[in-house]
């Protein structure tokens, strides 16, 4: 396909040349890659490209339709903005990992079948894991390990679901999932894990705050939003997603209100925002799917901006706890102002991108008369304004001066933030620019008098409440328990149980095997002797077979790895059940 260049190819393959360049040339090249990828997306036509036959299976690398287009558009745009922000990162392999990750997200958006999707999802998991590893602290290395395990789990679920679909329908095509039973369940669990839907959400808030500073900016954009895309394509109109999405929106907000870490707070707020999108996927009407795409688009920009702002504070001060920060607006005025733009956008203040995107989802919920969903989403939205729009900037930049030496970060970081901030306002002022990219034709006017007055009232009064009660919202030196407890503390407790109980049982079982094995061995020796002495040359095969069986039986006992994997899995399930029933 000479007239179609895959943007993922540009970013993923192109990125491996980054370590070859130095200085200015390298910086120029780092900026050039996402620009080329973006231009390739911006100039492409709808259609199907890049269909290859691999080992008799059809892989479609370029399914370009309205839904995949809008996601690829924002992915490559954000790759550029994040690229600008990360320009002063010296480790060249960090840039490679970031672009492999971002490029694969674009590849995933254009994937027309599950095999291609799985391939890019694994690349994404690997690239983003490296962004955590490059932080090079003990804590982040452990978090990276937990992160990749969760994504291996989700990857296997997707692959398993795809295989079962193939069995049922004879096709790996990735469209609205019609396969029933376990196939759909596995695919859904895989997608929900990647979208950080509770209880599969703790990987996000565990890993993002421990990633490198630009790494967290990249990570905030691609993984959950590509999962939202897969949900929108595969499971639009699945009712349970409304329930899960609403729970997710409220859950993220509750945790964010308690959070003290300036990058974990926006991570929880991401979960809350993705909850909006998951709810809209569940609603599944044309307006709702438009809302999903619009909100993902706007969210990537303002959440990237918020992570850039928080990252800049960490970059300059080396601190990431609200309890250690305060009064930074004087020394970091640009970071402060640009962060505030992101804070206003996520709070859906009129004239920002959040206002024109979030309201589509609320309208879609209203049209379907989903009263409870509407109330809880609006509740979460007020919470978002409180924690990300007010609490975080207030206790970082205003409040009592913590006396930290600081200044604005390097220029490229400011420019990255400024680009994102510009987009937040541009979309807010010219919403039709965003609406024209949406999957379905849309006739939607966010700036009606009722809507503006409604929003202004709710924000002003909630803001007033914050002003009065803000001292109760100051950061506290605590961390909050989340479902990662099960594999962080729960697994350690399980290992104790394993050594104490299962290892003992294992020993007994091994001992039981011994006499059987010995018997088999003796029998085979006997056979061999019998064969050698009496039926030499006639029934050689019998002895050989028995020796073979004996050898295999012996391997049963030493096949410890599988044995342990199974015991660990069963044990974990067992433990989770005990805890669930006790709690």
């Amino acid at each position: 396909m000479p007239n179609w260049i895959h943007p993922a190819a540009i970013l993923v393959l192109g990125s491996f040349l980054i370590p070859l360049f130095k200085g200015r040339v390298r910086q120029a090249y780092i900026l050039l890659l996402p620009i080329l990828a973006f231009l390739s997306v911006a100039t492409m036509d709808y259609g199907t490209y890049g269909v290859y036959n691999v080992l008799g299976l059809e892989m479609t690398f370029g399914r370009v339709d309205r839904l995949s287009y809008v996601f690829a558009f924002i992915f490559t745009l954000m790759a550029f903005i994040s690229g600008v922000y990360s320009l002063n990162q010296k480790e060249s392999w960090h840039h490679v990992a970031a672009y492999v990750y971002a490029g694969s997200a674009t590849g995933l958006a254009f994937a027309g079948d599950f095999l291609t999707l799985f391939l890019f999802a694994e690349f994404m998991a690997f690239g983003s894991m490296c962004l955590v590893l490059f932080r090079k602290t003990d804590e982040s290395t452990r978090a990276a390990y937990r992160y990749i395990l969760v994504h291996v789990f989700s990857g296997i679920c997707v692959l398993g679901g795809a295989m079962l679909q193939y069995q049922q329908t004879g096709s790996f095509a990735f469209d609205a999932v019609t396969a029933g039973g376990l196939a759909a369940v596995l695919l859904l669990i895989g997608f929900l894990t990647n979208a950080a839907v509770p209880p599969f959400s703790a990987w996000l808030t565990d890993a993002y705050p421990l990633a490198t500073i630009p790494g967290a900016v990249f990570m905030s954009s691609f993984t959950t939003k590509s999962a939202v895309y897969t949900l929108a394509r595969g499971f639009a109109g699945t009712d349970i997603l409304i329930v899960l999405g609403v729970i997710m929106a409220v859950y993220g907000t509750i945790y964010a209100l308690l959070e003290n870490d300036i990058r974990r707070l926006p991570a929880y707020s991401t979960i809350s925002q993705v909850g909006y999108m998951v709810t809209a996927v569940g609603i599944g009407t044309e307006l709702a799917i438009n809302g999903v795409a619009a909100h993902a688009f706007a969210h990537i920009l303002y959440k990237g901006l918020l992570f850039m702002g928080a990252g800049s504070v960490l970059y300059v001060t080396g601190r990431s706890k609200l309890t250690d920060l305060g009064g930074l607006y004087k020394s970091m005025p640009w970071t402060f102002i640009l962060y505030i733009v992101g804070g206003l956008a996520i709070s859906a203040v009129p004239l920002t991108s959040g206002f024109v995107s979030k309201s589509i989802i609320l309208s879609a919920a209203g049209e379907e008369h989903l009263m409870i969903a509407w109330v809880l989403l609006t509740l979460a939205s007020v919470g978002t304004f409180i924690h990300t729009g007010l609490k975080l900037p207030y206790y970082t930049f205003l409040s009592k001066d913590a006396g930290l030496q600081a200044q604005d970060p390097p220029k490229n970081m400011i420019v990255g933030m400024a680009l994102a901030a510009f987009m937040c306002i541009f979309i807010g002022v010219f919403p039709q620019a965003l609406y024209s990219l949406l999957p379905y034709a849309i006739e939607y006017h966010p700036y009606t008098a009722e809507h503006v007055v409604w929003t202004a009232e709710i924000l002003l009064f909630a803001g007033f409440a914050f002003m009065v009660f803000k001292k109760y919202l100051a950061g506290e030196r605590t961390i909050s328990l989340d479902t990662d407890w099960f594999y962080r503390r729960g697994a350690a407790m399980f290992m104790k149980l394993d050594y104490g109980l299962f290892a003992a049982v294992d020993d007994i079982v091994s001992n039981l095997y011994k006499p059987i094995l010995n018997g088999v061995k003796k029998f085979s020796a006997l056979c061999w002797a019998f064969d050698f002495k009496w039926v030499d040359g006639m029934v050689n095969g019998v002895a050989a077979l028995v020796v073979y069986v004996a050898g295999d039986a012996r391997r049963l006992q030493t096949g410890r790895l599988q044995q342990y994997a199974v015991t660990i899995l069963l044990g974990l399930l067992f433990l989770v059940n005990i805890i669930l029933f006790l709690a």
Partner: protein
Amino acid sequence: MKLENIIENQQTMRTLKVVLYVAMAVFVVIDIFMPRHHVEFFWDEIPGFSAAFGIAAFAAVVVAAKVLGKLFLQKDEDYYKK
């Protein structure tokens, strides 16, 4: 730096507070007289409902977070390091 002069100036901050109160009042007044074109839920027609919702939502999420935090969720920072 100009930003500092604005934020550190007590007089300016007092003025800003007054602006906030006036804005709150103005929007509620507009809300009372504003004709409704789009009514999806019954509360869309109640003037000032969203103002009350803003306060109530604040109270709900903050109290919920605080209660859950104190009872179950919040632990020492070195909880996982022990």
